[in-house]
């Protein structure tokens, strides 16, 4: 199944080519070409039902592609459990076993020792509840236990599907900080989420999946920047500024946050600034407009 598209040393942790998964007549993942580089914190964005979880399931070997190629750490998915840690959808636990025992069993399968178990229980804030049956854990505690299990063998690749699901705001911040600490070096982290701010705060590069198709893949800055050329400025007085822009025949609108969005590219910045100065408009800030991730997301998914 796997095509020889990457090796562990070529800087590519995950590589898919025309990855497709159909369930009956429905194509849930449609010809996705994904490339995740070694050591990056990669975000998989998309609404619920867009195909993110199915993609992650194929990357872990839980389900097989209908067609296309996929390679994870230079091997077929599911063949290197010692190097991959994953939390797919909500974490599963043996309810009659304690949190510690749940973790110990999985650790044993991947050759991790008791010290690693204790370390992860401590890191994820589960040490006090470790001897309680996991069936009585809250959703947030189960989520932490799932992440602890994914980390217990210090994997090279971490695949996390909606890691903040079920967590309260402080828990979400803790997970975000944990991921930032874990990232870097040779460890690659792929985080799937429909929470744009979460991805915006932690990821280097993102892929946006919509209706099973890959509609964007690249740097977050690139997504923020987009194709449209716009400037953003803080000016005073506003009336005089808009008159200047009208005089230059340049479109404008308010961004709702006290700034003026100017319909011109950065190459026209000197001309516009000169016109403002000539008209006694005070320029406090002007520069290329960076779209919010929400705006960028809406644009790429609607096109």
């Amino acid at each position, binding site marked *: 199944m796997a095509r020889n598209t990457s090796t562990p040393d070529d800087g590519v942790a995950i590589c898919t080519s025309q990855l497709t998964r159909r369930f009956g007549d429905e194509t849930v993942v449609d010809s996705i070409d994904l490339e995740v580089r070694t050591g990056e914190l990669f975000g998989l964005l998309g609404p619920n039902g867009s195909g993110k979880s199915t993609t992650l*399931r194929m990357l*872990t*070997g*839980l*389900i*097989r592609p209908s067609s296309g190629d996929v390679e994870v750490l230079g091997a077929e998915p*599911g063949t290197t*459990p010692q190097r*991959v840690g*994953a939390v*797919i959808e*909500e974490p*599963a*636990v*043996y*309810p*009659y*076993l304690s949190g510690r*025992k749940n973790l110990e*069993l*999985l650790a*044993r*399968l*991947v*050759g991790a020792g008791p010290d690693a178990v204790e370390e992860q229980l401590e890191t994820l804030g589960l040490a006090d509840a470790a001897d309680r049956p996991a069936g009585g854990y809250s959703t947030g505690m189960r989520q932490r236990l799932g992440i602890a*299990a994914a980390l217990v063998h210090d994997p090279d690749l971490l695949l996390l599907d909606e890691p903040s699901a079920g967590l309260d705001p402080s828990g979400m911040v803790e997970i975000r900080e944990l991921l930032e600490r874990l990232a870097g070096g040779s460890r690659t982290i792929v985080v799937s989420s429909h929470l744009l701010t979460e991805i915006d705060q932690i990821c280097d590069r993102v892929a946006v999946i919509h209706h099973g198709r890959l509609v964007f893949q690249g740097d977050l800055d690139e997504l923020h920047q987009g194709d449209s050329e716009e400037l953003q400025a803080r000016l005073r007085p506003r009336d005089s500024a808009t008159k200047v822009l009208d005089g230059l025949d340049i479109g404008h609108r308010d961004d709702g946050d006290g700034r003026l969005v100017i319909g011109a590219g950065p190459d026209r910045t000197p001309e516009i600034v000169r016109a403002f100065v000539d008209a006694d408009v005070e320029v406090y800030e002007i520069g290329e407009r960076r779209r919010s991730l929400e705006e960028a997301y809406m644009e790429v998914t609607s096109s």
Partner: protein
Amino acid sequence: MIAAIRVEYDKLVRRPALWWSAVAAAAMSIVFGYVIPYLVGTDGADPGSAPGEPGYSVPLETLLPEQLVENAISGFPLFYLALALVLGALTSGSEYTWRTIRSVVLWGPGRVTMLAAKSIVLVAAVVIVAVAAFAAGAASSWVIAVVENESASPPPVAEVLRGLGAAWLILAVGAVLGLAGGVLARSSGAVIGAGLVYLFVVELLLRTFVSRSEVIEVTAKALPGTNAGSLAGSFAETTQGAPGVNDLVGTGQAVAVLLAWSAAGVVVSAAVFARRDVHA
């Protein structure tokens, strides 16, 4: 493989269902094997009557320690086989219900290895159920012997071991078929329901028509319940009337067919589990 077996062992021995199965086997052995027959009467008024008929009684000697194996094994072809099937279905089906099947696949050394480890541990663990039933029977028969002032001498060790071996084989078949059903159905509830109906209705009904049709006879002789009944029947001349116990096939064929069913259960479930997507 060793790590997988250790993990599956840890999961199963900590699971209450295993110990409840042993407790249920012991309780059934005491109640149905000794208490009820003793209360029904052991005066020998009409030993020829069938259970439930007026005048039915149980010869006292069948309740004494010397006939432990004969008495204890009569419950295995139906009741304990069903118990093992439930345990097997719970062992694999719960992995889907709890969605831990994902962890098994993600962390495990391979799907077939994990399933093989689970099967090995399950087959080994049902020995506990067999021993519980025999131990409870031994204790009950000793009490009756003391109360009735009869001989409390035990049966030969070799016979006990042979009986335990047969009991274990019967339980192993039930457990493996339950495990396979859990994998195929991806749940335990449906398998338990269908399995119990099959054992208590379908097989028993089929066996009542054996004498009327050659096709039914051949079919019945290939089924796990019939062969389990014949294996138990090979120990128990005086308990031939016990539910599920029969003399339709010889001991050699019974053992061979039961082993074949066990192997088929493992192979089919491994083949399906190895290829099928995990959606849990």
